[in-house]
């Protein structure tokens, strides 16, 4: 039996009928076509499906769609919503933090949540923040560099 769920995704209010066992990940990818959120394991181990739920990072594969009722969901598609790249996205590009790209959406969102809490994180804090997001390509070094670069740029330029 499907149930109605109301939530806000990337700033747009949505009303969808979903099976109670449907995950937020399936809702995003299949019902809304927001395929930037990736499925790497479907059991909460890899972080490729990380999105922000009311500003907090969650693994969308472990959240039921109904649990997100009334929440604000931010996916990677909403990060550069006005067509210009977010400073974090630009920093990922500039620092060479992208390889296969499968972990990148989750990494960017988790980094965004970190920088919202700590404008100037230490390398250690960055590593802790992304510890739940697996990356097999980069060795994390350039991802750390990118997040610190974004923080520095923001401090220097006052970009929001």
């Amino acid at each position: 039996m499907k149930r109605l769920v109301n939530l806000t995704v990337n700033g747009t209010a949505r009303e969808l009928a979903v099976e109670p066992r449907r995950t937020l990940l399936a809702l995003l990818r299949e019902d809304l076509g927001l395929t930037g959120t990736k499925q790497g394991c479907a059991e909460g181990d890899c972080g490729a499906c990380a999105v922000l739920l009311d500003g907090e990072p969650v693994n969308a594969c472990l959240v039921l769609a109904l649990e997100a009722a009334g929440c604000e969901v931010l996916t990677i598609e909403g990060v550069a919503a006005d067509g210009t790249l977010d400073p974090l996205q630009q920093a990922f590009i500039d620092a060479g933090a992208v390889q296969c790209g499968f972990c990148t959406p989750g990494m960017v969102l988790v980094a965004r949540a970190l920088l919202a809490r700590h404008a100037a994180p230490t390398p250690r804090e960055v590593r802790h923040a992304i510890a739940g997001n697996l990356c097999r390509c980069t060795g994390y070094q350039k991802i750390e560099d990118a997040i610190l670069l974004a923080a520095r740029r923001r401090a220097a330029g006052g970009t929001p």
Partner: protein
Amino acid sequence: MSGGFDVLGGRGPRVDAVEKVTGRAQYTDDLTRPGLLHGALLQSPYAHARLVRLDTSRAERLPGVAAVLTARNTPRVPYGVSPARYDEQLFAGDRVRFIGDEIAAVAAVDLDTAAEALSLIRVEYEPLEPVLDALTAREPDRPQIHEAYARNVCAQVEQHFGDVDAARAGAYLVRQDRLSSKMQNAAFLEPQAALAEVDGRGRLTIWSSTQVPHYLQRTVAMVLGLAERDVHVVMPRVGGGFGAKASASAMELATCLLAQRTGRPTKTVFSREQVFLHGRSRHQFWHTMTTGVDREGRLLFLDHEALLDGGAAASFGIATIYYAGSLLGAPYRLRSMRYRGVRVVTNKPPCGAQRGHGGVHARALFETQLDRIAEELGLDPIELRLRNVMAAGETTCNDLAMSSLGMRECLEAVRDRSGWQPRAPRPAAPRAVAAEPDGLRPAGSSAGGNGNPLGVPISAVVRGRGVACGFFVSGAGYPIYRSRTPHASVVVRLDETGGGVEVQSAVAEIGQGCETVLATIAAEVLGVPVAAVRVRSGDTDLGLDLGAYSSRTTLMAGHAVKAAAEHVRDQVLAVVATALGVPPATLALRGALVLAAGAPVVSEAIRTEYVKEHRGWNLGLAGPHLTFAEAARLAFLERGPVVGTGLYRPPALGGSFKGAAVGTSPAYGCSAQIAEVRVDLDTGQVTLERVVAAHDCGRAINLTQVEGQMHGCVSMGVGEALFEEVVFGADGRIQNPSLADYRIPTALDVPPIEAIVVESDEPNGPFGAKEVGEGGIMPTIPAVLNAIYDATGVRVEELPASPERILAALRRDGGA
């Protein structure tokens, strides 16, 4: 080393970076088609069993099920990787050979229906005794897994270069050491996926997460009985491969057949567990090496024996077993070498290629053995290596030609950067154990927790550092099937409207950045910004490329794109030369302009025509100088489409002995690393503190990407050194088929990595470039093992060096 290049050797962004940071990049599972069906596989729950009865009738009757495939209604065409060892068939016939062996496939309107259909398939098994222990798999009483492999021996290698026995007789010091490992998983982030569709003409397109579109095309055509021209392989974005996606899979073949049978597009996606059940990653190895040196530490011989557990099929294993031997031929001068290798089959998921194919654990043992030899000789381990490293121009005893080799430079670079202190001969007495607070524990305590203000027990922590080297091919010298085929073909086409450049090729972009490499080379040749170049890749309609394996793309497709771009450049310059009335040789393309005798030129006629064509436009022309866009447009007007082609085929390489092809390459990259570790003597926990890595990649096409490959290599090596292990139960079932239980390094496990790019000018590489994608993993495991020994005084002889194994070694040998 800029070398006077405009874009080569820089740090420009990846050409696919924007789509990847915005979530627009589409991977196979992100694709859909109208009327899409969902495929699913029924896989064996037994490691070894006879199929007694298979009844699919209930599944076929389930509403929403469009097709059910088994061995009974699909082609029985053997396939695999090496044509001499085609030992796989789509769907088990009378026998299943590993847990995960495919028995049936269904296509249904949704995944729930597909799963229900699988549950309705009745299979009766007669369990057979499985062969799970590679060490005893050859014993006469063991069940034989494949008819073709007597005593379960899938491949056997014997090679002898020089005279090992004579060398042994004259050696000053001879050591024998052993190292074994566990099966590993590539654990890329994107599980395998495939979407197949048959168009109105009957042509099959498969979008796949493959890293070898060409071999996938061949295998699909062969198994389905189609002409190669009727199989079109397309790679969407691919989320890593590392080797395990380098062969056609039953899932891909089944998806093609489901689409063919139903007439509807069908998509199948692996679960993470299925990634493990499919396997095709790193083999389990047992290595024994006997090595002799003279009084000065010069290597005289290596006598090497290896056993490989291959799992239930040959897969890439024939290449693997040869690589395990041949990749020890360098980077040290080795006067003689004997190699005896055996690869057995067992009832486990088949093993294949993984980053550093076949050579990683052999390298790990050899480099740890060199440390032991250095210690016995009272030599610093770097000094021992420097006494033996080869130089450019030398050829190994197994006929591998080092056309460039910055091995000495790499060793010296990591030595100098890390602040390495030459190691004095090891004292006999146990070394003082320093009490060191772990990074997360309170500081200011002494050993045993005395004076610890928080009362938290502080462990005895010791530190150490280790060094190791390695080298790797820049592309396999020969294709997997016997052929004189070019290994890469590339077409560069200029937009008819002028200004745009399109590179068309089938190179496999799996995240390593080959599209950016191709774009950079084309941009350098054509004198335009990288952003002016569009790369279409991974599509068998666009060219032939053998794929992303053996670190071949930069060198091989790099040559092809360079030739194609030069072809285009020459056509454009010929047209411009005629228009300007100057010899073509005086013209060049640079900075998006045409240069004559090194200076920008002005042509009223060309400019006027170009501006007239664009009446009403704001062309934004920066000055009067003739632009690349105008020249390209003129070339089209004068002579039609401007298309350049290039191809690359390696020269004949290597010796004539059996297996001589494996290990040959037009060029070799090499690397050295120093790892610094902390070991907790109470828990056996190893923490990497720092890795200093140097790699000779020839000339770097993009420095940021070279570093990124080096970092990735180190990261994977750290995981393999310390905790990656596919664990099997007594029934042959994988105990840890998830990313929670099969642990790959997290951001907290990988230490800061200092990557030093050592550039040599490789005569056989495009612009002097060679590999970086795999060679960089070679030193990591032994550098970590040598560092653990330096810290603790114990050697771990079974990988991974988990806390349990380190504690066991400490108990056994006393340690520190």
